[in-house]
C-alpha cells in the first residue's frame, strides 16, 4: 500500500486529490524548469512501473428492472462497489440498477478486477433460461486473457464465464481481470454475452461503457455517454466535479455551461445502423482533422468527440423510423 500512496504523482484523474503536481509559485523559471524535468523523469519511471498503476476492484450485479408495466422486462447492471487503489468511489454511481450501466473511468496502465453477481430472479436457483441464465461482462478494447472473455464455453472452449447457471458451468459470481494496457485508450462498450443465448442480453439493457484515458489526458467539464439502440438513445452525464453519474434514461436532455468543453461518447447497440447528428455543431472525426456534423455508426462501434458548448442544440438519429419514433434529445447550454 505504500507504493500506492505515490499514485497521485502520475497525475491521473482517478486521484481524488490531483493537485499534487503543483509547484511553489516563488521558484525561479530556471529552477522550475529543472524541477519540472526532474519530476517528469521521476514520474515516467513511477508510472511505467506496473505496480504503481491504479488497481480497480469492482463489483457489479445484474438485476431485472420492471420497465413497461405490461410484464415485459429489461435487465440492468448495478455498481456494488468500486475502489481505486483502496479508495472507495462507489458514491459516484447510482444506488440502483441503471440503463445504461455504470461508466467506468480508467487510465492506460491500470488494472481492473471486476466481479459480476447475478440478482436476476431464478438465476442462482438452477433455473435455466434458454441455454443459460448467466450474466457476464464482455468488454471491448482492453487486454484480457481468454478466461476473462465473458462468453460461454461453447465460444471460448474454456468455461462459462458468467454468474449464474450456465450450460457447462455454474458460478455464484465470476471475476474478470482487465489489463488497461497502453494503446487501449478510447471509449469501449462492455455488455452481457451469456444471458439466455450465447449472444447475451446486450439488447435488453445489459450494457455500459469504459472510458480509457491516456496518462495525463485533458479534463472535460461534462462527459455525455449516449447509446444508440433500435428505438431510443439511452444515456447518462457525468460532471467532472465529483464525477457523479446522473440522468440515466432515454433521450436525456444534457446540460452544459456556456463555452465549456464537453465530450460525447457514442456507442451503438442492437441491429439498426444510425446516423447521429448534433444540429449546429461540427467536430473532428476521431483520428483525423476532418470536421464533420453527422456520423454513421453501427452496433458496437464507438465515436467520441468534443465540442465547445456554445448554443442549444438537438441531437438525433436520422434513421428514418427512429427519428419518427422520437429518437431525439437536447443539449441545453446555460450561462
Amino acid at each position, binding site marked *: 500500500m505504500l507504493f500506492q500512496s505515490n499514485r497521485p504523482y502520475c497525475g491521473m484523474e482517478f486521484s481524488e486529490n490531483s493537485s499534487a503536481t503543483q509547484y511553489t509559485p516563488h521558484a525561479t523559471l530556471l529552477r522550475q524548469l529543472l524541477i519540472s524535468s526532474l519530476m517528469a523523469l521521476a514520474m515516467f519511471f513511477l508510472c511505467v512501473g506496473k505496480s504503481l498503476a491504479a488497481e480497480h476492484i469492482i463489483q457489479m450485479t445484474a438485476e431485472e428492472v420492471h420497465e*413497461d408495466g405490461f410484464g415485459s422486462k*429489461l435487465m440492468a447492471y448495478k455498481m456494488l462497489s468500486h475502489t481505486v487503489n483502496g479508495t472507495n468511489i462507489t458514491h459516484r454511481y447510482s444506488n440502483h440498477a441503471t440503463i445504461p450501466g455504470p461508466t467506468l473511468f480508467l487510465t492506460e496502465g491500470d488494472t481492473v478486477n471486476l466481479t459480476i453477481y447475478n440478482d436476476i430472479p431464478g438465476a442462482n436457483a438452477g433455473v435455466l433460461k434458454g441455454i443459460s441464465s448467466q450474466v457476464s461482462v464482455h468488454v471491448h478494447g482492453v487486454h484480457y486473457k481468454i478466461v476473462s472473455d465473458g462468453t460461454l464455453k461453447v465460444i471460448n472452449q474454456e468455461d462459462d464465464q458468467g454468474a449464474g447457471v450456465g450450460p457447462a458451468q455454474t458460478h455464484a459470481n465470476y471475476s474478470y481481470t482487465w489489463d488497461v494496457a497502453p494503446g487501449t485508450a478510447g471509449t*469501449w462498450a462492455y455488455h452481457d454475452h451469456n444471458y439466455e443465448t450465447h449472444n447475451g442480453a446486450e439488447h435488453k439493457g445489459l450494457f455500459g461503457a469504459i472510458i480509457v484515458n491516456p496518462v495525463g489526458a485533458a479534463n472535460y467539464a461534462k462527459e455525455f455517454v449516449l447509446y444508440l439502440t433500435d428505438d431510443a438513445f439511452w444515456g447518462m452525464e457525468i460532471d467532472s466535479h465529483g464525477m457523479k453519474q446522473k440522468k440515466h434514461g432515454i433521450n436525456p436532455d444534457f446540460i452544459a455551461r456556456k463555452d465549456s468543453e464537453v465530450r460525447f461518447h457514442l456507442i451503438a447497440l442492437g441491429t439498426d445502423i444510425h446516423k447521429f447528428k448534433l444540429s449546429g455543431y461540427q467536430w473532428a472525426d476521431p483520428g483525423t482533422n476532418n470536421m464533420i456534423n453527422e456520423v454513421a455508426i453501427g452496433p458496437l462501434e464507438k465515436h467520441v468527440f468534443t465540442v465547445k458548448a456554445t448554443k442549444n442544440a438537438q441531437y438525433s438519429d436520422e434513421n428514418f423510423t427512429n427519428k419518427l419514433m422520437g429518437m431525439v434529445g437536447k443539449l441545453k447550454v446555460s450561462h
Partner: protein
Amino acid sequence: MNKYFSGLSIPLTKMTVLILFTVTMLASSMAFAAVHNITLTAETLPNGQLAYKLSGEARAAIPGPTLFVKQGDSVNVTLTNNTAVPVSFKVPGVGEQNPAMTAPGATATYAVDATTVGSYVYHGNSNGKELLGLFGALIVDKTDGSVERYVNDNGALTAVAQADIDKQLVLFMVGSTFWATEIVDGIQKPLWANPILGAAEDEIVRFHVLSVGPAHTFHLHAHRWLKPGTDSVIDTKLLVDGADAHSFTIKAGAGVGKGDWQFHCHLISHMEAGMHGSFKVGGAGTSSTVGASPYGRILLGTDDVPGLVTFEISDEGASWFRSARGDAIVGLPYDIKTKSLEVMAPGSSVNFVMSDTNGVHTISTLLWPTGAHHMPFDQTSAYRGGGIIKLDTPGLYVFTCKVHPYMFGAVIVDDPNTVGLDLGNPEKEYKIDLVTGISGLPTSSDLAVRLLRTFFVATSPDNWQDYSSQIWNVKFPTLPVRISGAPFSEELTQGGVSAPLSILNVNDAPLALLGKPAVPGVGEVWINTQFEKTDGKTKPGTITVVDAKNWTVKRKIALPEINMNNPHNMWVNRDQSVVYQTQWFDTKLTMLKRNNGQLIKNIHVGDTPSHVMTLPSNDDITIAINGENGVALIPAGKFEISKILPTQAAGHTSANPHGHWVSADGKSIVTPNINTGDIGIYGVDGKIHSRTSTGNNAPGAHPIAIGMMPDSSKVYAANLLHHTLSVLNGDTGALIKTINLIADYHPITGAFADNDGNGEIAVGVLPIQSPVSPDGKAVVIASTGGQIVIIDTATDTIVKMLPCDPGCHGANFGAKKGGGYYAYVSNKFSNRMIVVDIDPNGDGNIADAGIAGDVALVAGNNTAIDDTVNSLPGFGGQGVLAIPVVYNGWVQNLPSKWKKGLTDAQKNPIGH
C-alpha cells in the same frame, strides 16, 4: 439417405488455388505499373450458388479469387458466363459503375484502373444474384510494399511490410454468413462458410473484411486495430449497405495470448442468425478449419465434407424460401413441385440470404426433429441479411418468417444409413417438436401430415386450386420417407417402414365455382391478389376490383410504374376517392384513385407495412409497420408520416404489429403484436393503454389480425399458430375468453367430433382475419387451413363452419343490397373470392349463415388493366376492402352519394 443420393461420398479433393497473373511490364514512363490480365468464368456450384473461377483452376470458390495489385496497376478481366443469369464484374468505387452485363454463355472484358490504395469489392452486379457468391476482393497495395500497421501489445503502432505478413484472411460478410479464404505464401485456400480461422500466437495476420448487400459491423474479440487512414484504435467496424471493404493487420493474440476468440457481426439479429465464427490463436502451426462447403454432403453433392444448402429469400409467391438450385430440384425425376425443399446429411449447414426481397424478415423454425440441438432457431426482430445454421440431428426442419408466416422452407436432414428420408429424429421415434410448445408429435399423426401438406401446397403453385382449370391436382414427391410407425396414418407408413410421399397425392379432383351470389352487393370489392404476376414488373401482386352489382372483375391494378410489390391490405379515405395500399414485402404505402386505379403517390413508410386504416374521427391514416415496432400516422391529406407511435416501451422487444383495427370513435388503435404474442391497445396520442398476452402462457400464439365490436366493447384477435380466437375487453384489454378453434379436431387421429359440445363440428386451422360484422352480430374467421368459422358475438361461441380454399386468408364486410352484410373472403392458394351471407333471411339470427356464392378473380375480356397478367392469375388473395366502408364510425362519414345505396340500418348499424 437412400441410394439415389449415393453421390455423397466422393473423396475430398483438396482445393488450393494459386493465383498466377499474366503480368506485362510496361516500358517508358509507367515503368513500375503493371497490367494484370485475368481470365475468369462465372460458375454454378453443386448447391446452386454462383461463384467466380480463375482460369486454370479446377473449381470456382466463394469468395472469388483475391486480386492483389499495386497502386497504378491496371486490371483487365475477361469473363465468360457459364451460369444461367446475366453477370458482370463491377468494382464499386473504382471505374465503371454500370458495367455491361455478360449474357449466359457469352464472354466480355472489363478494365479497372487501380488508382487509389485500398480494398475493394468486385461483384457480379446481377440484381441480387451476386449475393449467391459472385463476389471477391481487389486489394490495391502501396507501391512501397508497406501495408496497414498493427497495434502491438505495448500500444506501439508498428509498421508492416508485405514480407512480414504470415497470413491473410479474406472474410466476406454476406446475408448473415461469413465466407472466407486463407492466403499463405500466395496460395489461396477456400475456407467456405463460417470456418474456424487459425493462427499461431504472434503471427502477423492481415484481415480483409468485405461485404456485399445489407450492412454489418465486424468485431473480433480481444484484438484491436487501426481505423483505415487514422491512428484511431478500433475493435469493431461498420461495413455499410451496398459494398464495403476494410483491411487491417493484427499480431495474433497481442497482449491477450492464446484462445478461441470469437469473431462476429455485432448486429443482434445477425448474431442470432448465426453470423459468428472462431479465430483460434494457438501454438506454432495452428491452422484454419474449413467451414460448410457447397460441394459437400448435400443431395447430389460431390465431396465428403460438411456441406451447405442455400435458400434465397424472395418476394415471389410460393418461392419465398427458394433453394438456390430450386429449378434443378424441380427438374429431378421425383416429381418435386416445390423449390423450397432441400436435402442434406447431418453436420451440414443451411444458409439463407435475403437476396430477392425488399422487405425485412426473420428466419425462424416452425418445427424440428424432437431432441435437435439449438432449436428453435429464431431472431428477436425482423431484419435484412440472412442466416446460417448447422444441423446435426436427422429429420425435417421447417423454416418460416414470423412476419410473413406462410413463407416456408424445408430441409430434410437425412441419415445416409437409413432407407427413406427421415422426417423425424430416428432416435426419438421420428417425432417432431413445434414452436408452439407441442413436443414429441409423431410424424405419422394427422397434424404432422396436415402440416406437411400445407408446406407442399403453399410452396408449389402447381398444387394450387385454379378454378379456370376445373380440376385440382396435388403432387407430392415420389421420395420415400421414414416417419413414426403404426398405428396412425397407415397410408404413409405402409406397415411402419417407409412409403413415397406421393401416396398423399390428390388426382384430378373436380373443382367448380358455386356461382355468383343471387343478391348483389353494394359498391365494389377490392382484393389484393398478392401473388399474381404481370409483364411490366419484377415484383408480384395486383389489386383485383370486383363490381358487386354484377360480380364481374372490373379492373386489375398492377402499377408497373412503381413495381408495386406484394400489395397486402387496403383502406379508403372518407369520400371513398383515394385507396391506400400497403406493400407488405417492401417499405411503401401507395395512394391511388379509386375511380380509375391511377397512382397518386408512393410513400416510404418503414419496413414491411402490413395493414392500413383511417381514424374515423379525422380521416388520418394509420399504418402498422409490421417489420418494425410501431404504427405510423399520416395526417389526412398529407403524403408524409408525422410520427410513428411505438407499440412497446423503449428497449423492449419489437411488437411487430400486423392487422390492426381502430375503435369506432377513432380514439384507440388495437394491434395484434405478432412478435411479442400480445394485443396492444394504444391511444392515438401514443399512450400504451394495455398489452395482453393471448397465448395462455404457451409460446408462439402469433396474434395476427383484429376485429372489433361496432361499439368497440370487445376485441377479437385471431392467434394463427394456436388456432384460437381471443376475446378482450375493448376498454381495458382484459382477456375475456379464448375460443379454441380446433377443439373438435384430434391432432393425432385426425378425427372430428363435437368435443366442445356446442352442437356443431367446426374447426378453424391457422385462423387469420377475424372482422366483426358492422351490426356486431358475427365474427367471420378466415382460416388458412381452408375453413371459415363463424362466431356468435352474443355468446362468443362457434356457430358454424363453412368450407374455404387452401390459404383462406382475408375477410371483410360490405353492404348487401337491400340490407344485411356480406363477408368477402379471399384465398392465397386459389383464385376465387367466397361471399358469405351472415344472415340470409335477415331475421337477426345468424344460425342460417352460409355461402352466398363465389367469384373468379381472373381478368375477363371487359376487365380494365394497366399491365398484362402472365402467371398465377387471380392467386394470392389477401387484404379485402369493400367500398363503401360500412363499419360503424366510418359509414356515418360517407358522402351522400355513397350513402344512397344503403338502407337506414346500414347507415347507422348500431344506433337505429
